[in-house]
């Protein structure tokens, strides 16, 4: 919960705030705010009394752009929302429009989408894990994570030509079929990648210092998480067994056998930073499982057959959500029957997850704020849109 | 010869920085110039062949007391007392008395015929002998000092703790 200045003054008047408290700025240029977030920390000594997030330093007017574009043209902009998980963003948007238009997708498209989405999830989690380690002061795991992420990007690049922002999943299909040797590339990657998980576990996740820094920090109880609408690893870290891929199934996730990872409080309390972090680590393995299963039954086919010539959804509205690496990404699309969407609202998981930071960081030290922020794993592009 | 020069260097360092300590406008300047006073005094100790005491001086005064003083200055700093309020009223009589004392002292020192018994400490340095003295003649004070410090730790911690309880909650 953020507070206005008046509220602060109110607090002072009520004696809750001692006048000699200090306001420290973290960001917008700060190594650990993961971009251009600004946190105003009200400190008492080293302890945090209040965290006041200031957003909008990366407000790029996505929703305005969406209204000015035709339906396919919006897709590159969805890429740029959560730029660490561009595939998943595409996926959600394409899904929304497809549902609005009632398009049935070919099998192969669904398979490719799932594989790509899961690869992207791994890539995104790798960044999250690496930067979290960096926040705690370990630089090396970050580079190991980035190294492996690079292999995923190579696969993406071979398939669709771009490294970061793909514009790959189109309404009704994909921009390209996968490249030759895709299956082998992915298998190779997974083979190469599994040991890295162990390595990062050794180097970082089970390191005593790391555990000390993250266990019992920023505990997010279930009720708060639900009320704040937290989702993804944030919610699962608190022990809630909820994953949209299973509980609100889309695409073909219901065909695969995998597990929803939840925080168990192994190192401290359920819902602390360590749990959130580890949920990501475990999810990477689950993603590998999904990908492997998908590759087993990878069907042939044409990926462009369902792409409509003209994309003009009928008048109507829809809210679809998909499980992004960061949580529930929802698109609320209103169509007025024209070629441009009437309104697109994106409900970004980071936006919602970040709103809880004030609740869970009070009473912690500055160093813990860094840990908490890192464990929320925000992407500013999606928060500010 | 070198001794003479060094003596004047250290003496000057000591006296000048001590002046700054007393007359500096800002408290933090006083505190930091105390650093140089202590260093000068340590230098004088060395010239007096008290090597152990000199090093102890640096360690305790600079490493400990000075830091504590600086922390104290920071802790109690308020927007208003960057400039220290010195009651001007008192300066005149006080300094008059002090300067008078100083003059008297210096006069006395000059007048006194000191019989200089120069006992140069051994080349080995003083630490060994000091240790022996501590372990023999002064063993009781040595232990008492230990107890004293224990009590001080307890006392200081107690005072510091108590006020925390009284104001923080």
């Amino acid at each position, binding site marked *: 919960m953020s507070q206005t200045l008046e509220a602060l003054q109110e607090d002072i008047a009520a004696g809750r705030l001692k006048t000699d408290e200090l306001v420290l700025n973290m960001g917008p240029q700060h190594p650990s705010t993961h971009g251009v977030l600004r946190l105003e920390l009200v400190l008492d000594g080293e302890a945090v009394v209040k965290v006041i997030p200031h957003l909008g330093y990366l407000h790029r007017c996505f929703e305005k752009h969406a209204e000015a*574009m035709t339906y*396919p*043209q*919006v*897709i*590159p*902009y969805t*890429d*740029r929302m959560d730029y660490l998980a561009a595939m998943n963003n595409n996926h959600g948007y394409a899904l929304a429009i497809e549902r609005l238009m009632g398009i049935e997708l070919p099998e192969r498209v669904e398979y490719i989408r799932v594989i790509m989405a899961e690869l992207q999830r791994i890539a995104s989690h790798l960044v999250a894990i690496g930067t979290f380690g960096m926040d705690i002061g370990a630089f*090396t795991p970050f580079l190991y994570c980035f*190294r492996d992420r*690079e292999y995923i990007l190579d696969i993406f*690049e*071979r*398939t*669709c*030509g*771009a490294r970061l*922002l793909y*514009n790959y999943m189109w309404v009704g299909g994909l*921009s*390209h079929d996968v*490249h030759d040797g895709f299956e082998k590339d992915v298998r190779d990657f997974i083979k190469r990648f599994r040991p890295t998980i162990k*390595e990062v576990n*050794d*180097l*970082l996740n*089970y*390191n*005593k*210092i790391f555990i000390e820094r993250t266990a019992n920090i920023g505990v997010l109880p279930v009720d708060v998480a639900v009320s704040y609408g937290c989702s993804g690893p944030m919610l699962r870290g608190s022990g809630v067994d909820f994953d949209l891929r299973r509980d609100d199934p889309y695409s073909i996730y219901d065909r695969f056998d995998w597990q929803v990872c939840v925080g168990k409080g192994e190192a401290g309390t359920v819902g602390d930073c360590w749990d959130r972090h580890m949920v990501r680590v475990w999810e990477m393995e689950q993603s590998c499982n999904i990908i492997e299963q998908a590759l087993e039954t990878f069907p042939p086919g044409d990926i462009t057959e369902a792409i409509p010539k003209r994309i003009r959804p009928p008048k109507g509205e829809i809210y679809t959500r998909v499980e992004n690496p960061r949580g529930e990404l929802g698109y609320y699309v209103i169509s007025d029957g024209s070629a441009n969407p009437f309104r697109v609202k994106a409900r970004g998981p980071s936006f919602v997850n970040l709103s809880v930071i004030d609740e869970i960081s009070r009473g912690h030290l500055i160093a813990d704020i860094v840990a908490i922020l890192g464990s929320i794993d925000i992407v500013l592009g999606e928060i500010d849109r | 010869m070198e001794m003479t020069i060094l003596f004047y260097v250290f003496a000057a360092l000591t006296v000048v920085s001590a002046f700054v300590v007393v007359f500096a406008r800002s408290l933090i300047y006083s505190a930091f110039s105390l650093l140089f006073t202590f260093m000068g005094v340590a230098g004088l100790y060395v010239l007096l062949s008290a090597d152990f005491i000199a090093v102890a001086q640096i360690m305790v005064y600079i490493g400990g007391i000075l830091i504590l003083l600086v922390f104290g200055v920071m802790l109690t700093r308020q927007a208003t007392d960057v400039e220290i309020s010195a009651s001007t009223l008192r300066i005149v009589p006080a300094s008059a008395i002090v300067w008078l004392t100083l003059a008297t002292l210096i006069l006395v020192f000059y007048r006194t015929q000191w019989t200089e018994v120069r006992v140069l400490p051994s080349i080995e340095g003083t630490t060994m002998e000091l240790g022996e003295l501590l372990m023999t003649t002064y063993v009781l004070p040595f232990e008492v000092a230990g107890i004293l410090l224990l009590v001080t730790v307890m006392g200081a911690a107690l005072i510091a703790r108590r006020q925390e309880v009284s104001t923080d909650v």
Partner: protein
Amino acid sequence: MTTYFKDIYDGIATALIGMKVTLGHLFVKNVTIQYPDVKHVLPERVRNRLYVNMDDCIGCDQCAKACPVNCITIETAKALPDEELGETSTGNRKRLWVTQFDIDIAKCCYCGLCVFPCPTYCIFMTESFEFSEYNRDDLIYRFATLTPEEAAEKKANAERFKEEQEAQKKAALEAKKKAEAAKKAAEEEMKEEEGKPPDAGSTPDAGKISDAENKSE
């Protein structure tokens, strides 16, 4: 008490495990690609700087319409009936002079949306990504092959032709009222093909014309 010692033990043990990992990497071959000397092999689908093969461009403006960022500016002038522009390699007949074809590569978001609708496959993404500039204006790529004078001329021609036709039309209108409806429809069709009417206000920047050629090595 046991936790106290266990914590100390864990601290030391896990630190040693970590040290083992990093020490091991000291002897692992590094993955660095030494960029200017060694280059990453780019896959064929790679999406970097756009290139337009002007020989094939029919000036249909499809690419500019598809572009979400509007960074393609195309201006065309209708060719005179007696001018033969030739055919594209895909066999489409060219009917328009492309007087201006600018891509502001600085604005482009490399989405590739412009590539798909092109009927002659003449706009495509190349492998070249190394084109940093000291000056932002150098990032505007002008693909039109005509010199400014030529372009002006073509435009004037088209203008004149249009006027003539208009005049003809008027005359015809007066003369033949019968076929009015049919003729008008035909006329309309013509206009539509013409695309945007040429904007006389903007003339292409002189001296930049051949840049695009020079740059795409």
